[in-house]
């Protein structure tokens, strides 16, 4: 598959835009505007670099894509958005070339648009319900809301840099925020804006959560995450890295010794799941978390400079079908693996990964083996991986999630020869805080239980994001953060009223 060059796409878009500029477009005309292809790095070239794959719409493309929106009265896209961004309004602003206004509209409900525009699973959210997709009878033909969001966010970043939100006068209240992923960033920003003192406590040496240690540079440039962190710092949020709550300090000592008035837990789902099959502890088997952390956070892909080693993969098997699996597979490609095989129990339709990333992976030469699951990993006398034995599956009745349940076919074992296996079947909630804080109630998966305001079973302790939802998404984490921040603010305000 060859891609049109960005120059070609821009030229074509400009021509079309000029032809409709100024005209009052009918619904029919809008529906005839072709969906804009996102410019991207050449698939062959990008196999050997870590730079971002998709390059983002040009201005003409963005305005043209915006013109595809029908400005529906009952904007069903908004219902599909977990935080309810006013989608038609921001798209209208883009169509009119009022970019600053567009970003201001998004910012009312989403503080991380440059990130969400890149990593949200739009095809399951706003774009799933979009009228344009319905009319074309193809949800993939919906208005590219995510790419438009990214366009204005990048436009703002490149023109003025994201401004520093105003901070109200100090209230004298102090909040500790555990973790620095999207949930925690949102809580910190919202509470700081209200004038509370906020300290982020992060275990790693670099803040940002999964967005820095998990999601690779080629999908989400780290500079974007760093900018968001800098914005927090400029607002006066204090960030303490190398601080592991549960070990460096116990949760209740944050109250007893450090005197915080409230605590938010956004410690994420960092515990890698393993399959529990034979051979899983052989040399050459890694959790996707380990492989990605070495490559991203520790920069092991930069073999010339990084001290942290990374296993040199030759033939790779990746187990799983989500974003984590795609990131692991595509990282292996960039580490010069000769062959990368994704092994997934169901079919392409059921893959939870963002559709765009599955396409990108395919373009980069990743091979997909659907309806297969590893049964055991084979090793040699040196305990190094030499292959994986897979069992074939067929789809049976739908399960609780509505997806058809894969059923193994007896006697269907085949062996794929590999020297590296990347286990990417998901993550469970990070257990350290709950283990060291028995008062915190959890469900059977170890997720912290909260009420509808994000409050946990402990007084003054709130939680949100993956630690509550199980491994979910950036936007849901952000939404949870919003909610918890509002409750924490209410609590702190009523404290002040009581003491007044």
């Amino acid at each position, binding site marked *: 598959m060859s891609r049109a060059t960005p120059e070609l796409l821009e030229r074509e878009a400009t021509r079309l835009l000029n032809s409709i500029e100024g005209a009052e477009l009918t619904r029919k005309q809008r529906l005839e505007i072709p969906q804009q292809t996102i410019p991207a790095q050449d698939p062959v070239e990008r196999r050997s670099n870590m730079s971002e794959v998709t390059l983002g719409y040009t201005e003409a493309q963005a305005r043209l894509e915006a013109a595809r929106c029908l400005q529906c009265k009952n904007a069903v896209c908004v219902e599909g958005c977990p935080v309810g961004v006013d989608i038609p309004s921001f798209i209208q602003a883009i169509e009119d070339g009022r970019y600053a206004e567009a970003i201001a509209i998004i910012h009312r409900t989403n503080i991380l648009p440059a990130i969400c525009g890149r990593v949200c699973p739009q095809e399951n959210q706003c774009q799933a319900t979009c009228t344009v997709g319905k009319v074309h009878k193809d949800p993939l033909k919906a208005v590219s809301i995510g790419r438009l969001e990214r366009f204005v966010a990048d436009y703002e970043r490149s023109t003025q840099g994201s401004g520093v939100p105003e901070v109200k006068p100090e209230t004298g209240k102090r909040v500790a925020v555990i973790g620095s992923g999207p949930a925690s960033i949102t809580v910190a920003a919202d509470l700081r804006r209200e004038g509370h003192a906020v300290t982020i406590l992060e275990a790693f040496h670099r803040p940002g959560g999964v967005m820095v240690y998990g999601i690779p540079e080629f999908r989400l440039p780290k500079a974007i995450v760093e900018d968001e962190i800098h914005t927090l710092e400029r607002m006066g949020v204090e960030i303490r890295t190398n601080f592991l709550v549960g070990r460096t300090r116990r949760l209740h000592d944050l109250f007893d010794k450090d005197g915080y008035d409230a605590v938010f837990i956004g410690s994420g789902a*960092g515990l890698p799941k393993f399959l529990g099959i034979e051979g899983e502890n052989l040399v050459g088997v890694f*959790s996707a978390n380990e492989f990605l952390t070495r490559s991203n956070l520790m920069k092991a892909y930069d073999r010339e400079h990084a001290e*942290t080693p990374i296993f040199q993969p030759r033939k790779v098997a990746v187990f799983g079908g989500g974003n984590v699996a795609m990131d692991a597979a595509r990282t292996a490609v960039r580490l010069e693996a000769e062959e990368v095989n994704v092994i997934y129990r169901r079919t392409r339709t059921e893959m939870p990964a963002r559709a765009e990333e599955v396409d990108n992976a395919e373009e980069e030469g990743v091979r997909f083996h659907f309806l297969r699951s590893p049964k055991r990993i084979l090793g040699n006398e040196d305990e190094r991986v030499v292959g994986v034995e897979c069992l074939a599956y067929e789809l049976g009745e739908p399960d609780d999630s509505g997806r058809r349940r894969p059923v193994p076919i007896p006697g269907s074992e085949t062996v794929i020869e590999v020297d590296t296996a990347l286990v990417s079947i998901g993550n469970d909630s990070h257990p350290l805080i709950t283990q060291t804080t028995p008062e915190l109630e959890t469900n059977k998966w170890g997720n912290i239980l909260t009420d509808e305001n994000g409050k946990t079973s402990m007084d003054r302790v709130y939680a949100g994001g993956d630690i509550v939802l199980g491994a979910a998404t950036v936007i849901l984490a952000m939404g949870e953060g919003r909610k918890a921040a509002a409750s924490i603010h209410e609590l702190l305000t009523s404290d002040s009223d009581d003491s007044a």
Partner: protein
Amino acid sequence: MPARMVAVNRILEREQLAPHVFRIRVEAPLIAEERRPGQFVILQIDSEFGERIPLTIADADPEEGSITLIFQAVGKSTQQLAALNVGGKIANLLGPLGRPTEIKSFGRVIAVGGGIGVAPMFPIVQALKREGNRITTIIGARTRELVILESEMRSVSEELIVCTDDGSYGRKAVVTEPLAELCRSERLPDLVVAIGPAIMMKFCVETVRHHDIPVMVSLNTIMVDGTGMCGGCRVTVDGETKFVCVDGPEFDGRLVDFNNMLKRLEAYRDQEERRLHECRIEEVRE
């Protein structure tokens, strides 16, 4: 308001104990306050490209707010750490990590420390002694000048046996020999603690396996985060996968699959050799 609060992690004292073996005292008030015997830290010399390396906390002074680390400068990162002078700063220092040692009254304890493993052993023996345990310590080293913490160990042990591989000091023996002899006497120990190279711990376990005595070992697997989120440190214990950084570092050695652990320790051997080779070449050039 300056926002990023980076602890200073300043080096307060630095001393060379043996060839390639260093002891440093580092300012780390929070870690000093929380730390208990058996726990470790993860440190990184350079935030951008540095490696995260685990080191057991050899001692801590909560009053002063400092911890003591003893390490062998073997790889590039530990060599860089050894090159830091008093007043120098360690970019990142995380801890205390891992579960503390179970300290209680066992009765008679044999503590076996091999090489640099004597360093993490010292605080454990010290705490066990405080609980009234009677301790026999065996220190093993390749040669005389690599014997460390002898007088410290002597001060907390009823009996101290030093062995060297080449016989240049103490007994010419490997640690399993005196260990086997002690287990042949009338009164079997109630607990054996073995800390040192993986291969030494494995043989200590084998030496006493038929006696039905628990052998506590402290595992030194490869780690990245040290917080339980990568699984790189995993070992098989009693047929189950455990993460050394959060479930350990101490386990009953009788249940540990040492053969698998030994192979996993060599996962990056090729890369490491290449790097070390490169850095030697650099040294020669300089």
